[in-house]
């Protein structure tokens, strides 16, 4: 079958969203994965955006932003940030979220704030590279019952320790997260262009649990910046079914996921 690695990733992430759940998607990849799920199998999901766009299905392809007109054309409710990110997400009410990441470490901490020359320096210096800032990902990572991280699998992104924790995962691992009274349980899985990682019980270190027909365990280890452990029951992730691909492409009208990969 002919599909890109981005398409495989979006479908793999979408498969983790279940019918009836309350779900929040960010812009870009995560919105495509979420709306693929909504169309394909997660019927009756209660999906919303950070800005409080409720009940909408994108028209004309991937929205340019999470309140873009492509996602605003058929909404049933428009509210606001404190409503959606506060009362629905931070409150602990939301079942599942999907976020992206510029940098991820082995405990699922995410950096979307900046890259530093000397990340070990505790003092705050101007970043070598300014990223976009955390956005609403901290609400999703602190408070969604579970969440999915999606990222292109590159060695420079998957690092031992992120330069800056924008959105907390399992922090220093183990039960480090427990000292905060977060309403959410932490990252459930990381879905990449090459495979799927899930946290090992007790340590909460992410380990490889799935690879694709288009990748290999070796390729994934080579492209990961920490010494990635492989789960004893690591599995080959099923390829997209024709119906899945059809539904994904109906959402990804502008072909964003087919551009590279």
């Amino acid at each position, binding site marked *: 079958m002919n599909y890109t690695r981005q398409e495989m990733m979006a479908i793999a992430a979408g498969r983790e969203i279940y019918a009836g759940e309350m779900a929040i998607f960010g812009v870009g990849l995560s919105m495509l994965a979420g709306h693929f799920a909504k169309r394909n199998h997660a019927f009756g999901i209660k999906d919303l955006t950070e800005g409080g766009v409720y009940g909408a299905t994108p028209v004309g392809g991937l929205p340019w932003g999470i309140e873009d007109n492509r996602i605003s054309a058929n909404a049933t409710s428009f509210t606001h940030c404190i409503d959606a990110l506060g009362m629905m997400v931070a409150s602990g009410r939301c079942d599942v979220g999907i976020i992206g990441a510029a940098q991820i470490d082995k405990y699922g901490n995410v950096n979307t704030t900046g890259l530093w020359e000397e990340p070990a320096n505790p003092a705050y210096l101007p970043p070598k590279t300014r990223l976009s800032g955390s956005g609403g990902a*901290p609400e999703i990572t*602190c408070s969604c019952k579970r969440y999915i991280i999606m990222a292109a699998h590159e060695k420079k992104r998957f690092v031992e320790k992120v330069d800056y924790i924008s959105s907390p995962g399992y922090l220093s691992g183990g039960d480090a997260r427990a000292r905060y009274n*977060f309403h959410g349980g932490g990252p459930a899985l990381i879905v990449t262009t090459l495979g799927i990682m899930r946290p090992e019980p007790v340590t909460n270190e992410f380990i490889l649990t799935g690879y694709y027909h288009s990748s290999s365990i070796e390729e994934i280890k080579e492209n990961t910046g920490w010494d990635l452990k492989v789960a004893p029951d690591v599995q080959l992730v099923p390829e997209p079914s024709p119906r899945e691909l059809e539904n994904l492409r109906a959402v990804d009208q502008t072909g964003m996921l087919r551009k590279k990969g």
Partner: protein
Amino acid sequence: MPNKLLSMQEAVAQYTWDGMQYAHGASLSVGPDSVAFGREMVRQGRKNLHVMSHCCGQQLNLLCAAGAVDRVETAFSGLEVYGFPYGLRRAVESGRTIVEDYSNLNFSLRLLAGAMNWPFCPAVSGYGSDQEWRSAFSPEEYPCDKKIPEVMDPFTGKTCHVLSPLKPDVAAIHVTMADPDGNAIMLGTEWNRYELSRAAKKVVLQADLIVDTACMRQYPNLVRIPDVVVDAVVYWPLGVWPQCSTGLYDSDEEHMYYMNNAMKTPEGFDEYKQKYIDSYHTIDEYLAVIGKGKINKLQDTATWHLMDPYRKWIMSSEEIVKLMDGR
């Protein structure tokens, strides 16, 4: 009561100054921000700004590229699918502009605390990370105990993190429609424009359309910004361009990239300023700069029907000019 209509030039001259705390946006990155107001600030040469920008892309990008910004407080400074803002990057990476980061919700809650005049606002997310421990405004303090400190919840004995309030000097807020008194309707998500309109000491509205007050009396539940909190109203159609205004026009894909690329270098900024800021003075000139064909294309939006109920109250340019002269 005189109406509150002001020209863009007057509004910027009267309500902005060097060194001020200026808030804009309170909408999403490629959404309804007061971009035209920001262009006029650049033209009038404002500098040393402390900008509260959540989470608006191109205006902050432009102000940073102009070297006008000392400090930014934000939660998201990207351009969503359009990528990273190069003007901001250049300013931040060079150390010219420093950025204090919070999460999206926590930025909104800081505005809520400002609007309520609370000493602080509780947070249940957006800490336990470097957002709590590191502060760009207090770089030498690590962990920075003052950025998102803890108090003891007297009901349970557990700790609770709290946020400091934001009370900007002036907010320039984009709305879809305003009446001449400053009652305003926003179509699309509010993001946190509602909270900002109550947190700021002064509020200037930038409106795509001016409508008769009869529209507000038909739809009072839509008027989330009432005249009592508004100081001035600027009529500026297509004022969000190249970003989108729900119900009216889409974002301008081509110009979004073009503008952002221009911000990469001082030369690019200068050229952009000459072509897209200094090149117009009136609304008609501004619209000519965008171009009629482009405007028609942008107005071919899937949200166009959302404006249908309100069209009959839209005031013409002539009526608006008459109201401004008549005071």
